[in-house]
C-alpha cells in the first residue's frame, strides 16, 4: 500500500467493514509512514471539530428562539 491508496481508502479503514487482511495492509503502511499517521490524526480531528462546531452541546436546552412571527405564520397557513 502507498500513501495515495491509504488516503483514498482511509474512510473504509476508519468506518468500513474491512477483512483482517485488508486492515493489516493499512496498519503495515501506518507503521512505516509518519505522513499517513499525521494525515489520519488530522482527518479524525476534522470530524471532531466539525461536530463540535455545528452540533449543539448535549447538555444544551432545546432552542426556544423560534420567532413568534414564524409560529403565527405556520398556524395561519395551516388554517387557510
Amino acid at each position, binding site marked *: 500500500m502507498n500513501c495515495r491508496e491509504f488516503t483514498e481508502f*482511509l474512510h473504509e479503514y476508519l468506518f468500513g467493514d474491512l477483512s483482517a487482511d485488508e486492515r493489516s495492509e493499512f496498519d503495515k503502511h501506518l507503521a512505516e509512514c509518519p*505522513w499517513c499517521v499525521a494525515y489520519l490524526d488530522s482527518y479524525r480531528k476534522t470530524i471532531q471539530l466539525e461536530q463540535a462546531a455545528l452540533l449543539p452541546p448535549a447538555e444544551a436546552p432545546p432552542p426556544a428562539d423560534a*420567532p413568534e412571527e414564524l409560529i403565527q405564520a405556520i398556524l395561519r397557513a395551516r388554517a387557510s
Partner: protein
Amino acid sequence: MEHAPPSGQLSARDDEVALVARMKSGDAAAFESCVRTYCGRLLLVARRMLNHEEDANDAVQDAFLSAFKGIGRFKEESQLGTWLHRIVVNAALGRLRHRQRHPEKPIEDLLPHFGEGEHQLDPPVLWKALPEASAQDRETRELVQRCVQQLPETYRIVLMLRDIEGITTEATADLLGTSVAVVKTRLHRARQALRSLLDPHFRRGNV
C-alpha cells in the same frame, strides 16, 4: 440525543401519543402545541443546512405544513421529533434545489495531491491536541463553521446530513436521489477538503 422539554410543554411519551391523536382528529390547539414544542429545534436544523434566515423560516413552514398534511400516515411507534426532523431536512433540501445554482468550485483543489513515489506533495503534519468538544472556544467553532461554508455545496450537504444530522448513508442516498457509493465517496471527499481548509490553523506549532 433528547433534551428535557421545558415545563408546560410535552413531558412524556404518553403526552406525545395523545398529541398525535389530537392532531389526527384535527384539534387546532394540538397543532399549535406541536409547533410551539418543535419549531425552535427544526429552525436550528434548517439554519444549519441553509445558512439563510428567510429560507430557513420557509423550510420550517413547509415542513410543518407537510407534516400536518401527512399526520394520518404517522406511525405511533415512531418518535414525533425524529419524524419532523426528517421532514424539515427534506424541506431544506427542496429549498437548496430551488436556489439559483452557481457553478461549484472543483473539490479537487482541496484534495491531497501526490508526486513521485505516491507521497503527498504537501506532506501532512500532526495537528495540535484538541480540547473536548464542549470545551471548544467560540472562535474555533466560528472558524470551522466558515470552513464548512467554503465546501462545494454538493459535498457540504452530504457532510451535514451524515455527520451533523446523523442520517444514515442509505437514507442520505434516498434523500439525494443517488447511490450509497456516491454518498460514501462524497462524504470522504468533503472531510478531506475540510481537513485541507483547517490544516493551516491546527498544525502543531501554530496558534
